[in-house]
């Protein structure tokens, strides 16, 4: 398993989760956990996903998600989990 964190930040609208999940399914990415919250009026969603079996490289994935975000009107980022683990866990 190779866990990554996908974050979606922006104005809430219909179909954000659906479109992100459709893309992930196409790329053979399993979703392990989803949570969401509203911070200062903005929709914040976080997904923990398994990028261990992706059908293309990580760079393509981050670029695709960024583009998908731009189409929906939100910001989508995909980062390897270690940066959060290192910062918040001793």
């Amino acid at each position, binding site marked *: 398993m190779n866990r990554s964190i996908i974050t979606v930040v922006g104005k809430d609208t219909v179909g954000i989760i659906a479109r992100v999940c459709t893309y992930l399914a196409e790329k053979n990415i399993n979703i392990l956990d989803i949570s969401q*919250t509203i*911070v200062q009026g903005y929709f*914040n969603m*976080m997904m923990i996903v398994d990028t261990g079996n992706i059908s293309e490289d990580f760079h393509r994935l981050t670029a695709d998600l960024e583009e998908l975000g731009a189409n929906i009107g939100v910001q989508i*980022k995909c*980062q390897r989990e270690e*940066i*959060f683990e290192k*910062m*918040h866990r001793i």
Partner: protein
Amino acid sequence: MININEVIETNLMIEKENLDVRTITVGINLLDCASGNVGQVCSNIKSKIIRTAGKLAETAENISMEYGIPIVNKRISITPISLVGASACKSPQDYVQIAMALDEAAKAVGVNFLGGYSAVVSKGMTQSDRLLIESIPEALARTERICSSVNVGSTKTGINMDAVRLMGEIVKKTAEATRDRDSLGCAKLVVLCNAPDDNPFMAGAFHGVTEADAIINVGVSGPGVVKYALESVRGASFEVLCETIKKTAFKITRVGQLVAQEASRRLGIPFGIIDLSLAPTPAIGDSVADILHEIGVEKAGAPGTTAALAMLNDQVKKGGVMASSYVGGLSGAFIPVSEDQGMIEAAECGALTIEKLEAMTCVCSVGLDMIAIPGDTPASTISGIIADEAAIGMVNQKTTAVRIIPVIGKTVGDSVEFGGLLGHAPVMPVNRFGCEAFISREGRIPAPIHSFKN
């Protein structure tokens, strides 16, 4: 498992508070490039740098993209060139040829600065050290990415006052040689005392002879992150204040540690140290002066500044050492004037003077940094400033440095634009009384009594 609030916190630090990894610096030993022929030394150096660090820029970009953390600079530090060129160089011009070869190598591998056009002369100067030092003005005028440093003293050896005298003249000559660019050459020249062998930050980086063949040193940053964290504890006690700085420093350093290990693994070069310094940039909100303001001094330089800086520096180190077992370099808070918007404003409104900055260097990680002074300042006065800083470093067993820019043709009231990360600065007044008789004495100042620890 990581929760959403932790993810939001990390990404806010990166996006809003300017958290970044300031530099990945690959230290490269060039002693095996020595030869009796200058042309051969140049070609050996170029091929070793390209062979060792050829993938540095690409690797750093990949890591940056995968973790979503900006890596601002990719840099190289090398063995002090006075040693590498010793058997080949018979004149300062021979050393300049090596500088130009280094500049080409830096461009070829895509790093923005390469440090180590240096000499370590803390006790005495060899003929090759002297030739290298004499070549510095021309070398910095004819290259773009080379940084030069000279270590003129240490707690163990005392201060080499002959080198201090010479460096006052070299700083002036470098300013003259680059006068068409607001004396920019001096922004790439630093005079040190107690220089560390593993510093990843410019302009003082070099790869000391105590180091391995190649090593990765990482400098983390994040004054903005500390400042934002302190906004949430306004009016709180010192205990709360210190705790907040420590926790923030811990988080910042862990990111640096991750990046350093990843870069080390991908490049196949051992990890050396993390340097914990809070390094400001001219960007708004990325300022050490703003942290001091948030701690409670109206402007950097006001009474209380030295105490606030001492506390900040100490807490940064305490938080950082918990986060990484290999902490080195300088570590603390940098206080460059032209690279820190808050410092620039403090200097412009008269809150910050060179004398107050000198006091601040007693408790922070480096020294008088990126300070523009009038172009007609005598070389002996510059040597006097260097000697004062070296004395602070020698007696307090810490690194100190001087990177001042006598801007030719400009005086107090003018301002200078260096551009990019080097920023801009007002020309600050220098004490007009001289020290010619002191500086013209020959020899060295002996090591202080507390250096006899053996």
